[in-house]
């Protein structure tokens, strides 16, 4: 049986209640809107670049605990990283949350983001966990919007 405690870990609940980098940004270099129409999650992401590097990133919006905490922790994880590094991190994250079983969910290289490994046991929640990542990708590629449905 999948365990709720794996999904709603303390760190996740903490980020949900007090999301980090939860603010708007004036004159961002890049931004994008993300939507998960199925559950009504919605966020706007702002990015300030320093050459090839993400200098600052923040978000506003509204969503379930998983999507909010994921956005909050993502902002912390990608700051200061190059676009290529961000993409690598996203790939690792995506592989972890879409793993077929917890045993196959590798958290290697993901640091604190490993708390989302429990998501793989709740397939319908994968979109919640990855919404902010897809939105960041859309922002970095100047696509403007992203929908995970």
């Amino acid at each position, binding site marked *: 049986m999948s365990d709720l405690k794996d999904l709603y870990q303390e760190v996740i*609940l903490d980020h949900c209640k007090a999301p980090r980098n939860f603010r708007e940004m004036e004159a961002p270099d890049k931004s994008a809107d993300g939507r998960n129409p199925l559950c*009504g999650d919605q966020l706007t992401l702002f990015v300030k670049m320093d050459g090839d590097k993400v200098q600052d990133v923040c978000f506003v919006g509204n969503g379930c605990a*998983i999507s909010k905490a994921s956005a909050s922790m993502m902002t912390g994880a990608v700051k200061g990283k190059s676009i290529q590094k961000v993409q690598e991190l996203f790939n690792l994250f995506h592989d972890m949350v879409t793993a077929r079983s917890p045993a196959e969910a590798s958290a290697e290289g993901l640091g604190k983001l490993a708390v989302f490994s429990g998501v793989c046991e709740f397939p319908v929640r994968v979109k919640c966990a990855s919404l902010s990542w897809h939105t960041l990708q859309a922002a970095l590629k100047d696509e403007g919007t992203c929908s995970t449905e």
Partner: protein
Amino acid sequence: MTVITKEAPPRVEGRTFDPETIRSDFPILSREVHGKPLVYLDNAATSQKPAVVIEALENYYRELNSNVHRGVHLLSQKATDAYEGARETLRAFINARSLAEVIYVRGTTEAINLVASTYGRRNVGEGDEVVITAMEHHSNIVPWQLLCEDKGARLRVAPMDDTGTLQLPELEKLLGPRTRLLSLGHVSNALGTINPLRQIIDMAHDRNIPVMVDGAQAVPHLAVDVQALDCDFYAFSSHKLYGPTGIGVLYGKEALLKEMPPYQGGGDMILSVSFEKTTYNALPYRFEAGTPNIADAIAFGKAVEYFQEQMASGLLEYEEQLLDYATEQVGALPGVRIIGTACEKVGVVSFVLDCAHPHDIGTIVDQEGVAIRTGHHCAQPVMERFQIPATARASFGMYNTRADVDALVRSLHKVIEVFG
């Protein structure tokens, strides 16, 4: 104002509704999910099926399978009899005048699309208006939007108040000389509101405006009589009424159906075809092109018979009491807000919690075996009206009991424990 919207059908003397016997008729209710007994509270999305319905499906494929209306052989005749017999059951169920008025469709969605693309296409022109309400399901919004876009017509939306009650004076103002059709839900799937149809239909008919009713959420909880309502079209789905998916009914007044152009072309909807000219079949077959969903239609008939038996035993009163109990129990939770508090409601309790997003609520109660729906319920404009992204919704069926409500409330306490 005394508008009776919930008319109980005649009760058979001496019979009482017993949910425990009912429960034993539904095989799926004895299964477990996540190691817990299933508490199924997502009936507005789709209901479970009693054994008689499942057996009817199996029996059809084992004993009767054959195409209808076209063979002289025995099985084809028997299949046709069963298929047309179910149509008669459905006709009597909604009290349509004749079988010509009962058209088999895939479901409510197809019924509404059928009317939009036949009646609508013929009767709605540039500058005309179609009126709907603020509580419609997407399937009673989008077909009209498509039609209006195509024709240069205007879609107008009657508002509701903070309880989720339709504002009749506002609706009345929208019914004008350019209104070609009013299409509205009998019962809201997201809020549970029962609209006072009789009164609304009179209002529209006083102005010669025909009325299409989306009855998807009404037929499982109310006694519907299309002649008493005097509606022009009425649509409903089998799968919300304890029958199989993939089948439903469009009722239409014969006088209107007769004037409508065909919907889809093909076999069964024609009398004769040549490359020069095709003569269309009589009603209702004119709107039923191709080999129909025979098995599901037959099983739908069985579902309706089963449902009628329970109605005669007092199902509707039972459902009302259960709704009262659920409203009281869910309403007593800390930080809860019930969305949809109209006076006249069916068994739907939509709610939000201060501490948790509906999606998280859904996941946590699911772990306790409790199946509810979370999200926008295909009614995004309703969510916007209440300025919420989504709700959690418990919706009841004939097999639900107070114990199910208690299980829901216990699981909601778990949510509050995690997030509170």
